[in-house]
């Protein structure tokens, strides 16, 4: 009797199964209301892009901030545009733009939203927002644009643009997604992690037209976006813009450093461009124009361009000579028996006078003594040992290596050592007579404007430096990177700096840079004339001021401007005056420098490939050093005096 209960039980099971099937059939097939509710009220995950950190100058003036803009996204399979003509009119686009944008969006995904128009301004957004409700499948996403308070510092700050495919694939931890913005150069690139902040996620409810219907679950699951950290620079925006105005119509660099901290006060890469042009809807067009520009405005000259230091290098030679004891402050040299030429100047009976008059034979002799200091009989071996010892001393000034500034693509420069010459001549097949042009900063030496500004800072500090850096304070805590708080010693004792500084004061007061001295400010400086194969010499000047309590160290490079005293020194001294006294007294000089147009003198490497301009030349110099053999065919081209060719060097070249 109890066995029959199994039928009751199985019947009960079956009954439940049937009830559930009927209920499911009703819910899923018969009742339309649920399917409508589902598609009409769906949850969307919205990524909240945080505001990028802002950037301030040394006095707290805003340099970079963000302006809200709106991107228009389209979901192709939901898009309904019945009136294409009106639609295009509202958005201000052509019919064929519309078609190509739709095609591109469909190619990406038919069901996911993709970018239709980017970076509509707040005003544009306000005017079309209401009309767009008529077209389903379109939605707006808030985004922001970098905005610059002044049209300056383009290369230092860098630019931000949509992440490239390669960057997307190469990222180590998957953070970025298609369409994300990322710092591509300058400070924006180096401090990307600090600036970008933290993305937030919001869940919102939307109806079929993508119209916002409020937060889902009252925002319970949302995570807030955290704005990026603000960056505080050591830049002086006013001085920076003043320096910009002086460098108009010139090719070159200005780097000013606060010697006591290593903070960059000003950094000009001329010619420059307005950074706002790369932070707009027209990024690709404007970027292409900058790439095509023969003067390479995107090339950050202060840290990437390489020059021979010319006579400014004599300062280091003097310092090393004094430190190594091969000369004393009272050492004097004449022009006699010297393969390098010089110009007429009073006798150089002390180190100070040698610096003031930038006497070539003086430093030829200093260098000779440094190389042969080791007293090895064999001159080949003596040169080899001497050069390496010298190399190590010079390297402490940051020459021939990256300083570690917080900007991308810093050029290492070149400081030759034994190995370097061995590659050309073979071991012990070369001696001092092959390398003496190093003595006056020519030959195989390559530096950047930044390095020479740092040399000025070292002399200002009498022996040490802090790595030059743009950002001196990250976030509210103003945290400074540890590496920028470390003091680097050069190994030259402070008392050895005094004769050199005395010579530098002399150079400004009565020497090569006397025409640009500033009343009331004690400036110590040194001109340089950097030889190059492409035309007139580059004008170089490094200086610091005030002498007793240095507040600014500066290096100015003006390409093809001739001697150091002609363009670089006046520009440097005007900037120093502007920085220290906030005004400029010598208005005539200021006007002359601002109006000076050297663009016609600038020689681009080859007329055929203008885009390759500077960098190509630099690259060849990096990889293939100048052949120091004076008899090589390369150096016998007419009109190109090779620095190592004694005949050429006999001309006075070192003003």
């Amino acid at each position, binding site marked *: 009797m*109890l*066995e029959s*209960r*199994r039928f*009751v*039980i*199985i019947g009960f*099971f*079956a009954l*439940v*199964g049937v*009830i*559930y*099937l009927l*209920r*499911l*059939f009703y*819910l*899923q*097939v018969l*009742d339309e*209301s*649920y*399917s409508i*509710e*589902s*598609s009409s009220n*769906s*949850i969307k*995950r919205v990524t909240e892009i945080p505001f990028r950190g802002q950037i301030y100058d040394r006095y707290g003036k805003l340099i970079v901030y963000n302006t809200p803009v709106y991107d228009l996204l389209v979901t192709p399979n939901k898009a309904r545009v019945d009136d294409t003509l009106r639609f295009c009119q509202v958005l201000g686009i052509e019919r064929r733009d519309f078609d190509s944008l739709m095609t591109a969006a469909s190619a990406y995904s038919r069901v*996911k939203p993709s970018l239709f128009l980017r970076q509509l301004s707040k005003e544009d957004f306000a005017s079309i927002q209401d009309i767009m409700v008529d077209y389903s499948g379109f939605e707006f996403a808030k985004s922001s644009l970098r905005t610059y308070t002044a049209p300056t510092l383009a290369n230092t700050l860098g630019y931000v643009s949509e992440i490239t495919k390669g960057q997307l694939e190469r990222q180590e931890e998957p953070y970025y*997604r298609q369409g994300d913005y990322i710092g591509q150069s300058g400070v924006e690139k180096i401090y990307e992690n600090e600036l970008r902040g933290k993305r937030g996620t919001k*869940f919102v409810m939307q109806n079929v037209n993508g119209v916002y219907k409020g937060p889902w*679950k*009252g925002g319970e*699951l949302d995570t807030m976006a955290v704005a990026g950290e603000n960056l505080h620079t050591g830049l002086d925006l006013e001085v920076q813009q003043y320096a910009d105005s002086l460098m108009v119509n010139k090719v070159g660099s200005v780097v000013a450093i606060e010697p006591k901290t290593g903070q960059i006060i000003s950094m000009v890469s001329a010619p420059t461009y307005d950074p706002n042009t790369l932070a707009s809807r027209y990024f690709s067009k404007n970027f292409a124009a900058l790439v095509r520009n023969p003067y390479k405005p995107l090339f950050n000259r202060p840290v990437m361009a390489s020059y021979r230091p010319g006579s400014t290098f004599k300062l280091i030679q003097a310092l090393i000579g004094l430190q190594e004891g091969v000369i004393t402050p009272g050492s004097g040299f004449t022009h006699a028996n010297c393969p390098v030429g010089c110009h007429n100047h009073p006798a150089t009976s002390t180190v100070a006078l040698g610096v003031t008059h930038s006497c070539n034979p003086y430093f030829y002799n200093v260098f000779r003594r440094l190389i042969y200091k080791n007293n090895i009989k064999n001159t080949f071996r003596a040169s080899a040992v001497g050069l390496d010892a010298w190399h190590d001393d010079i390297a402490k000034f940051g020459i021939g290596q990256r300083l570690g500034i917080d900007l991308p693509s810093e050029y290492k420069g070149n400081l030759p050592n034994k190995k370097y010459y061995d590659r050309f001549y073979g071991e012990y097949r070369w001696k001092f007579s092959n390398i003496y042009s190093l003595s006056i900063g020519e030959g195989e030496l390559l530096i950047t404007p930044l390095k020479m500004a740092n040399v000025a800072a070292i002399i200002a500090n009498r022996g040490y430096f802090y790595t030059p850096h743009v950002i001196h304070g990250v976030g509210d805590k103003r945290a400074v990177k540890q590496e920028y708080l470390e003091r680097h010693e050069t190994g030259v004792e402070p008392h050895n700096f005094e004769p050199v500084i005395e010579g530098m004061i002399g150079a400004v007061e009565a020497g090569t840079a006397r025409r640009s001295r500033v009343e009331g400010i004690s400036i110590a400086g040194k001109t340089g004339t950097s030889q190059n194969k492409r035309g007139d010499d580059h004008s170089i000047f490094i200086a610091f001021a005030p002498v007793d309590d240095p507040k600014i160290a500066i290096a100015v490079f003006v390409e093809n401007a001739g001697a150091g005293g002609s363009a670089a020194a006046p520009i440097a001294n005007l900037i120093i005056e502007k920085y220290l006294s906030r005004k400029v007294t010598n208005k005539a000089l200021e006007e002359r420098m601002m109006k000076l147009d050297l663009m016609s003198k600038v020689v681009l490497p080859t007329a055929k490939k203008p885009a390759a301009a500077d960098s190509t030349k630099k690259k060849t110099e990096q990889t293939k050093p100048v052949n120091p053999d004076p008899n090589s065919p390369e150096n016998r081209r007419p009109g190109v005096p090779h620095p190592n060719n004694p005949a050429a060097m006999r001309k006075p070249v070192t003003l």
Partner: protein
Amino acid sequence: MPESKPITKNVDWLVVLIYIACLVIGWLNIYAAVYNPEAHTSMFDLSNNAGKQLMWIGTAALLIICILVIDYKFYETFSFVIYAVVIFLLVVVLFAGSNINGSRSWIKLGGFSLQPAEFSKLAISLAISKYLSDPAISLNRKLKDYYPIMGIIALPAFLILLSNETGSMLVFASFAIVLYREGMPGFIPAIGIIGAALLIITLLFVKWYIAGAIIVIAGLVVWLMPVMTRRRGGLWATIIIAIGMIGIVFGVDFFMNNVLQKHQRGRIMVLLDPDSDPRGIGWNVIQSKIAIGSGGMTGKGFLQGTQTKFDFVPEQSTDFIFCTVGEEHGFAGTAVVVLLFVTLISRLVVLAERQRSRFARVYGYCVAGIIFFHFLVNVGMTIGLMPVIGIPLPFFSYGGSSLWSFSVLLFIFLKIDAQRPFTLSRG
């Protein structure tokens, strides 16, 4: 006895196939539930529930092999030992358990959590079967024979109640099915069902109307009753039943307000009118119905669901996994799942009936009853026919403890069944 005959020959392959089908469909739906279209979630990534479930499936397979290898007599012999071990674990968890989602019912072992309450079903099943295997025990004659059964169920139920895991405790109601089969008078489950129905009706309609309706029905019953029955006490019986039912109707208020906890009351209220609290407790039910309802006839397609992503339906890979089936595979998918379950439990009943020992039969009914109850409540909850009670859908829901306990439960029975030709009837 030629017990060395390979187990593969005698095991019931229909049940095994349904079991495998449930695991595979369940796993794919767990993957769909955790799938994030932006992150390209991997099926085999151990950091998400789909990858972990695969690992649980693998370990369950090992467990099954162990069960099939162990002698079938072990389970009967050690029934009470297993029961004692589980009771011990339930006590341990009260003191050493980790708190997950408000219930202190998990034991953490290394990186994994185990829920002893899940294994209490197995323990009770074995203990009841063992107890009922004594042919002297009769459920339709002696009331005192019920006491041990009540004790066997009440002890773990009490311990589970202490750890605040009410859902698991309710599953013990499924033992009514086996008790009914073994002789419990039919009016007891009937009273239970009528009581539950009255409870729901009371909450839906005005109490006086219901009382009136009961009186009218009682009057009709008395009127239609054969005169002989009426004279032999049928009249009084009907009056007493009617008064009892009216008492229940008016007692419901008291029950709802004083006996049930607030969230339990809420869950029952929501069942009756989900829109009464659309952002609170009603949310689960509404969203789960939307998800299933939006699936239509054939569904949106694998991984194409929109409602079961982003925690839209809560517990989407565990208790609400049926929503994913409904949304992505539509009525076709849900019908297959319902049919799989009905076939499985019916087949288990058939298998149980062909057992020669009473132990095996009772145990078979226990397994069928437990799986049926889970199916009844879990699926019923997602389609708005049952209150929201957090119990998993067997073989489908994500979770190692539930998968293990259901697999063990089922395969012990399959093992016993496979030995059936060689066992002698004892009851």
